[in-house]
């Protein structure tokens, strides 16, 4: 059979490759500009530095009440229960090097912002997005307190949440995620 490779001529090729940033006018002018308001409404991703966190605050005590109402049926009354497909949210420290490692917020998660992000994004199942901003802060505070990371009376807000040092912050390799195309690895896998 014939194989014609690289017959590809152009239009797109010229655009491909490289990370050159372009300030020029858009090549095609298809799509419409997004407004700030639209972006705010959609931008629910919270990075490790918490820049996207909306103003608000919460405490563990308030969080305990919300947890009992909206979370305990799946995660168990104390959050230490592992029920069905939900692993426990607490405990597990010192288990990571055993045959039966237990990955929890306290033993595994490197950033507290991830907890806030995920509660707002995905909890509770079926009612995603129904929690208010403050409720998310409350629940985050509750889980951090139950994991022994903050005190029961600490008030969590958009400023101090990104600063919380999670116990397993340095438990990941490489320290800074990166990707090199074609990097050599044993058997194609990283140990």
């Amino acid at each position, binding site marked *: *059979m*014939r*194989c014609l*490779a*690289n017959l*590809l001529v152009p239009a797109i*090729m010229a655009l*491909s*490759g490289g990370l050159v940033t372009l300030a020029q006018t858009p090549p095609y002018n298809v799509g419409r500009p997004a407004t700030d308001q639209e972006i705010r409404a959609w931008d629910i991703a919270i990075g490790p530095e918490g820049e996207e966190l909306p103003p608000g605050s919460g405490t563990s005590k308030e969080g305990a009440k919300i947890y009992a109402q909206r979370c305990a049926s799946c995660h168990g009354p104390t959050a230490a229960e592992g029920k069905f497909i939900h692993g426990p949210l607490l405990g597990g420290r010192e288990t990571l090097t055993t045959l039966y490692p237990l990955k929890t917020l306290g033993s595994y998660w490197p950033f507290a912002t991830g907890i806030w992000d995920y509660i707002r994004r995905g909890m509770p199942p079926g009612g995603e997005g129904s929690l208010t901003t403050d409720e998310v802060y409350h629940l985050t505070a509750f889980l951090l307190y139950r994991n022994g990371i903050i005190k029961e009376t600490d008030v969590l807000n958009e400023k101090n949440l990104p600063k919380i040092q999670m116990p397993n912050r340095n438990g990941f390799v490489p320290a800074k995620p990166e990707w090199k*195309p*074609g990097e050599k690895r044993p058997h194609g896998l990283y140990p």
Partner: protein
Amino acid sequence: MGWFTMHYYCRNLLVLTLALTGAAAVAQGPAYQRGRNATEEEIRAWDISIGPDGKELPPGSGTATEGAQIYAQKCAACHGKTGAEIHPAKLTHMGGAPGPLVGGVGTLSSSKPVKTVGSFWPYATILWDYIRRGMPEFRPGTLTVNEVYALTAFLLFQNGIIKEKDVMDANSLPKVQMPNRDGFVPPKPEWKPGMKRPLGYYP
């Protein structure tokens, strides 16, 4: 690193098959021993293809006279009383009426050519094969061998190719000379791989 630099590894996967290309007869034994030998009886039951010299025609016979009666019963509803009509019924695969079976001689180079058994078909054996294989439209395979001979004879007679009393059988049918036998190009169909044609089409 992207798609565009990708290289296709071109291999002749079918080394095996390619080595076989060409129509040379091979005397070697089978390579894979899959499939089982078909018996002669099985082959006879299935082999309904009739070639131009009629080797496969089964014993039997028929005349136009006999065929006329069968035609009236089983064919006229779609093809018309004489075979020369264009019936309004929309029954064929092309959605229109079946074309006429009779007539049309001399029209092929006109702007309204009429392709019929008499004006167009190159071998009489095709007629026998097709009647047995595909007719009647909604009950293919229900005609007896003699009925097929009779109908073939009838249509050849209607087209003025044989006489009314001529008996069509495995011996006589392949010898019938069809008027348009030489109306096809190339006379002996050939296919050559990679043949270039003017404008993608040869006139």
